[in-house]
């Protein structure tokens, strides 16, 4: 029993090596997380996103701004007969509208076959059969409820303490986000613009 104890096995390695390994592993986890995001910002395909207010009364919470986009609700083709579940990973194919903003053209469970240059973004289903959001940000529940609500990891934007109010008072239609999407569909916010002018820009490091 004693021979199988975790501590007595570990004690065979000298303390100096163990301390070095602990410090290096903890730091590596943090650096790996940084590199994973920086890689998206460095090499990802850029998409422009219009924002819609998710909660018009309280856009600013704590020290981050909550953002939602037209692509946050995705129409699912009724003919595809795919029942998505809450929490499931989905791949959303993006097209462009006449102004150049991204719009969702379909959602699949597996990586879709797409032409070169078409951006696919990965997300997680947060609810099924949700209502649509119209341009004012109000919910429109009149049509068929075959829409998914999808989170892409682009929904919070951290700002220095006290600066969130400025964004909150800005008319939501003037806010635009530029995101980078990696070849694997992971996305990260790259710039936040008001009236087309960059307000915050995110360098990779």
């Amino acid at each position: 029993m004693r021979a199988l104890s975790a501590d007595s096995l570990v004690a065979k390695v000298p303390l100096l090596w163990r301390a070095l390994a602990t410090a290096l592993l903890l730091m590596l986890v943090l650096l790996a997380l940084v590199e994973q995001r920086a890689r998206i910002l460095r090499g990802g395909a850029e998409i422009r996103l219009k924002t819609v207010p998710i909660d018009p009364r309280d856009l600013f919470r704590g020290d981050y701004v909550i953002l939602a986009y037209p692509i946050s609700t995705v129409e699912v083709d009724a003919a595809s007969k795919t029942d998505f579940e809450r929490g499931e990973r989905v791949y959303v194919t993006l097209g462009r509208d006449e102004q150049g903003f991204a719009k969702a053209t379909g959602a699949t469970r597996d990586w879709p076959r797409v032409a070169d240059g078409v951006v696919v973004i990965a997300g997680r289903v947060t609810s099924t059969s949700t209502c649509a959001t119209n341009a004012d940000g109000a919910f429109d529940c009149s049509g068929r409820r075959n829409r998914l609500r999808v989170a892409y990891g682009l929904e919070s934007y951290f700002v220095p303490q006290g600066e969130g109010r400025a964004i909150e008072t800005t008319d939501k239609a003037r806010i635009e986000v530029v995101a980078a999407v990696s070849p694997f569909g992971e996305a990260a916010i790259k710039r936040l613009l008001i009236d087309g002018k960059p307000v915050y820009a995110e360098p990779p490091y």
Partner: protein
Amino acid sequence: MLTGSYRKRLEADLPRWVAEGWLSAENATAIRRSVAREQGGVRLPALLGLLGGLLIAASVAAFVAAGWEDIPRLVKLGMILATIAICIAYAFRLERQGSPRGADAAVTCGVLIFGAGLALVGQMYHLPADWPGGALLVALGGLIAAVLMRSNGALAIALIAICAWSGGRWEEARSGAHLGFFILYLPALWLSLSRDNRLVHHLVVLAAAAWLAMAPGYGLFDRFDYGLLAYGLALAVFYVALGALALDRSLPPVLTACLPWGLLGLVLVLNTELIRILDRDEARAGHAFRFVVLAYAVAIPVVACLAGLARERRFAWPLAAGLAFALLVPAVFWTGIVTAMAGKIIVASLVLLAATALVVAGAAGGIRRLVLAGSVLFGVAILILLWQTIGTLLDQSLFFLIAGAALLAIASGARRLFAHLNPPEKEAA
């Protein structure tokens, strides 16, 4: 049975052992010195160090949350990495100097700052507020430090983070049990087997309890099902029997931490069942769903093991009997006689019998927790019976009279039996 009151009991016993001539005065002094060294004095600097470390980690967390932009983000990240390295280096130095508790405090501080670092990276790259994901990374960091630096503080942080991660994912998925929990819990459990830290033992036991509580799935909690009470009762019985068996058979000390939590669950569930059966609207026939059957299938053999394998039968048999009485309570609900007077009388009697058995087992085995739990269960049950009576107050009075008379008869019988088994020393001589 190393409990907090060990030193007090030793102080009471040592003079008697010396007087009896079983122990020399020098040996008694040596024992006292050893226990004092283990429990007091030397711990103080490490304890203060731990509190200081916690404050420093909180300061780093607040600094990160402020999102102060005058310092470039990379410099902030560098500062956090450097602080982690300093904490671990300091832990190395303290361990070398023979202060393992101080080293533990430094490693704990390092793991907390690692958590603040995760928050910083989340803020730098606007990661979504996925707190279960963050908890998973904190748990990984905590486990790494707990294994390599043999830190109890890091293991405690890891266990709390494992629960937060698993609970968060369970709540998100809104389905059944979260099996991923065991990927991190089993290594933590393995580590805890070689630790003598009570906080770690309690957290290990509580983490398992939290997972077991969530296992039946989100839906049952969403639309509350009374079967959950039976499930909770079977789990509490399992915990009490396992803890008692661990105390009696000297199993790994981590298992003894099951006892207090099992007793707490037992007292709460039994009293809730009693309130429920006496309430006109809530006294409904229940049913056992799959998890209740599974929990009973585990609890009954463990209670049987306690009765059959325990060394000290005077303590194990009454306890096993009490636990069996408790397990019968939900069975009364399943039979459907709950709405009749008979059902109410049976459940009230079973609860009082279980309470009495706990007190008897506690007194016979010298385990004060059992006596306390049994007394609380007994007292609260009587208050509940006076508040929501079985039938009229007169019926209730008759119930108490018969129950009291039965107990007095048992007490008198037991006194005669003990007098017969242990004759006074003079006669024996």
